[in-house]
């Protein structure tokens, strides 16, 4: 009995690395849902890049009524429009030169898949603001109510990070 138990433990020790590998492979399926946004000043505009897991993008595409494969151009477009409708600048803002900025329209430029992520690209053509405006960001909340959002803003005197929990 003891011998068989020891033998069984020995077998478990042999299997343990394999089990660990299996858990490691499986773990991404249980990762949290989130969208990461980088907003970068490039001299005459802000470039805005949103990044989400491909699994979440697939859910968004279905939520938007898409039935095509996520790689299809129309699926990419649907996800981009979903982000466009849920990521907005709020209100006017003072420019660094003292005038008021009243143009707060973001242009959605495109979307692409790279590795296990979907990227959505937007831009805000504007003068440099004194402070980056407030954001309305409800991306992913329709499909994953607990989804987090992380925003990083990079620009002269503008560097900051914002978070939605």
């Amino acid at each position: 009995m003891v011998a068989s138990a020891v033998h069984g433990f020995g077998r478990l020790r042999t299997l343990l690395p394999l089990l660990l590998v299996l858990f490691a492979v499986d773990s991404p399926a249980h990762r949290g849902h989130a969208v990461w946004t980088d907003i970068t000043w490039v001299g005459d505009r802000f470039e805005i890049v949103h990044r989400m897991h491909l699994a979440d993008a697939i859910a968004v595409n279905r939520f938007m009524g898409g039935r095509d494969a996520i790689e299809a151009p129309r699926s990419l477009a649907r996800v981009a429009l979903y982000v466009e409708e849920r990521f907005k600048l709020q209100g006017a803002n003072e420019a660094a030169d003292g005038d008021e900025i009243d143009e707060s329209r973001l242009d959605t430029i495109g979307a692409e898949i790279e590795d296990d992520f979907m990227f959505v690209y937007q831009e805000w053509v504007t003068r440099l603001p004194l402070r980056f405006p407030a954001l309305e960001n409800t991306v992913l909340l329709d499909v994953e109510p607990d989804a987090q959002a992380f925003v990083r803003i990079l620009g002269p005197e503008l560097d900051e990070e914002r978070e939605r929990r």
Partner: protein
Amino acid sequence: MARSDVQSSRRYSPLLAIPMLFMLLSGCASMNRDFSRDWPQELPPSNYFVISYERDALNQEYQALHEYMYWVRKFYEGTALYPRGWSDITTEILDATEDPKAKPEMTERLAILGRDIAAEWSKDGGISLVKNHNLATWGIAASRAVGEGNVEETLDRISDDLGKLLSRELTADAITVDRYHAPDPEDPFAF
């Protein structure tokens, strides 16, 4: 000239139908091609226009995506009726821009303006707020601006008019060349 002569000169030769038919068929064949496969690199990414297409649900009822993308390409490359496409207009303006420091900004401006016009004009003819004659008007205005040296002001006005057209503050018929340039008194065909 006798009345019958006038009538016959207006009649099309049956032989003319052959190349016309060929042109139409080749147009249909290229319209049905997969647009993403051979999208020209010098054009804005095709994805931008797919997003524009998806944005207009009404247009989708009348026009398939591949038709829309076909007309986007034609906007840049030119058509049989309007052989000077936006790419030609861009080249003409950039060639005339002497200050090398001004070229990158002008390139960017033309790219954004072209993109915005293409996204609307390429929709189904009954839906699009930008009509064929608007393209012709803007093409003429841009060419004249090169000659007169007021390209920036003209592009500003075209951009402003496009915005008003899209927000329905202006109708397509209201956009004429004299909005951008005073009529030339020595030009007998000036309109």
